[in-house]
């Protein structure tokens, strides 16, 4: 078997299939899982199976590391809660922190980077002031980047806490203001589910809508295997009578029908083993999602460049895109 991201997808989908791996296969699987930040997830999937001792040790470390990450993520959410509580504004957790705070299966072993929260758009300045008073400070020293975020993006420029060294992304909208799709962030906040500590998480349908928007309507699909795994776990967890219809209706409300449909098809192709009907550019997406070699390095440069350009195309109208790329080019930025 040629080693790329499909090796990891097979192991996540059917943990028993790893019994057929030789040492080169295991080595590639671990390198790819680490590169895709899915090593902790893989560790949970393979728990209890007979695996080589060297792999068992590596996966035990990954599990311990993910557990420590979970504790830190929840603590960071608590710190943000304390900073924003006096304002009384609703604060919604997004992505990894929301999964672990709600005890969802998508959070098992998941690596969590920044804290992502959503607050009402008309109170974003208030949120910023409160967070800065509580010890967060600017990361982007470049005035162009700062102005760019403030004018065009769906979030504040990233903030980092000066003592805990942890990043927070404060969103007021789901996608950049310049994007062609405009999900209804206010509806997400209105239908959010409260946690015991007063923080909120999106409704099941909105967790999926946000994940699909994040994966297919924003960014260049870097880390896409993990985002699609989130979608797979959420669908598994919420599957039940009428959920598919409610999800479809919700995706329509946010203008994300096409993204959600694509998420369902690609999830089936990579993670459920169903014979799925791929349409349009799906195969190109799969090619991009699984673009790793047996060393965990990125491959398929042309495909990745294509998706990188697409990510900007989605975010901005052409004249803005041209200006942005020109400014970035002059500053020596390369798409990697």
């Amino acid at each position: 078997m040629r080693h790329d991201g499909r090796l990891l997808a097979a192991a996540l989908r059917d943990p028993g299939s790893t019994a057929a791996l030789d040492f080169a296969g295991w080595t590639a699987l671990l390198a790819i899982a680490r590169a895709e930040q899915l090593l902790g997830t893989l560790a949970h999937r393979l728990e209890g199976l007979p695996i080589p001792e060297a792999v068992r040790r590596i996966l035990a470390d990954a599990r311990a590391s993910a557990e420590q990450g979970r504790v830190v993520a929840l603590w960071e959410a608590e710190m943000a809660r304390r900073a924003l509580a006096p304002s009384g504004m609703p604060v919604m957790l997004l992505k990894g922190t929301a999964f672990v705070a709600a005890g969802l299966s998508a959070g098992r072993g998941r690596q969590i980077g920044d804290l992502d929260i959503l607050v009402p758009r008309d109170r974003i300045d208030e949120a910023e002031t409160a967070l800065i008073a509580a010890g967060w400070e600017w990361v982007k020293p470049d005035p162009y980047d700062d102005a760019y975020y403030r004018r065009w993006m769906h979030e504040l420029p990233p903030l980092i806490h000066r003592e805990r060294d942890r990043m927070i992304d404060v969103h007021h909208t789901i996608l950049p203001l310049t994007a062609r799709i405009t999900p209804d962030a206010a509806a997400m906040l209105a239908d959010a589910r409260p946690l015991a500590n007063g923080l909120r998480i999106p409704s099941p349908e909105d967790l999926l809508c946000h994940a699909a928007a994040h994966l297919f309507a924003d960014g260049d699909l870097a880390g896409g295997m993990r985002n699609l795994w989130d979608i797979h776990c959420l669908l598994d967890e919420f599957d039940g009578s009428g959920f598919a219809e409610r999800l479809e209706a919700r995706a329509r409300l946010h203008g994300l029908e096409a993204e959600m449909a694509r998420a369902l098809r690609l999830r089936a192709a990579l993670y459920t083993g169903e014979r799925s009907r791929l349409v349009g550019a799906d195969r190109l997406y799969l090619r991009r999602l699984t673009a790793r070699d047996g060393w965990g390095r990125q491959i398929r440069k042309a495909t990745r460049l294509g998706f990188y350009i697409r990510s900007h195309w989605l975010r901005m109208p052409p004249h803005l895109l041209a200006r942005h790329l020109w400014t970035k080019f002059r500053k020596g930025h390369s798409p990697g």
Partner: protein
Amino acid sequence: MRHAASLRIGPIGFRIGSDWRGPVAAVRALYSDYPQPDDDIPDFNVHLFAARPWRRVLRPSVQIGGDFVIPDAAPLPLAQGLLAAEMGMNLQMALGQRRYLLLHAATAEREGRAILMTGISGAGKSTLAALLMARGWRLMGDEFALVDPATGRVHAFPRLVSLKNEGIAVAEAALPQARFGPRLEGTPKGAIRHLVPDARAIAAMAEPADPALILFPRFGFEVAERPVLPSETFVRLTQASTNYTALGERGFESLTRLVRDVPARAIDYPDAQTALAHIERIWSVL
């Protein structure tokens, strides 16, 4: 990757891939007595690659990557490929190691008990480790001490000893029979020459030891010694650890146990012989 080598140092397996033959050949030659990773499955991967395809041949420069990377790591000239491989392995440990509490320290063992020497770059850790090896101690490593959170014991990580500048001649004189790598001039840390640990260090690298002494050596001063309080030791070791924070509670418990159970001393020394005599004296009255 075009060229690859695998090896195990202490309990940690590595796979090193390279766009060029040279760095892998150098690693193979100097690590020829080291075993393969357990089950042939490495813990970490190191990538030595050309930043642009033509830089493979045109003014070749080695970019260091792997499972864990520092984004702005500067490339090295191909002649320093061995150093790039070493830096790559150290980087994977520093950024990715979660099984052991990692202390930036040189370690040597006698009768099952270990001395941990830690300090800033230039304090003389590598040179002292090499000289202790010459005097019959078992070298456990000159870069990282691996503290097992479950047992409190120290595991060996006897990679090539990285001798720098004045330390090179001192070790060459003390270990005339030892195997050395090529002398690398003009590296980011000046001149570097790698020393292959002796057969005993390699044969016993799977055997952990009980930590018995923490030493903070400082080169370039009149000889002096003082005990170091647990509070100061604790703070200095948190600074000497690359994964103390990432280990969370396990890291805290490992470090508090170490600091509580093991005496610590700081010594200043003007030359290696004075330091060694001093270390032997402290060791004899422990």
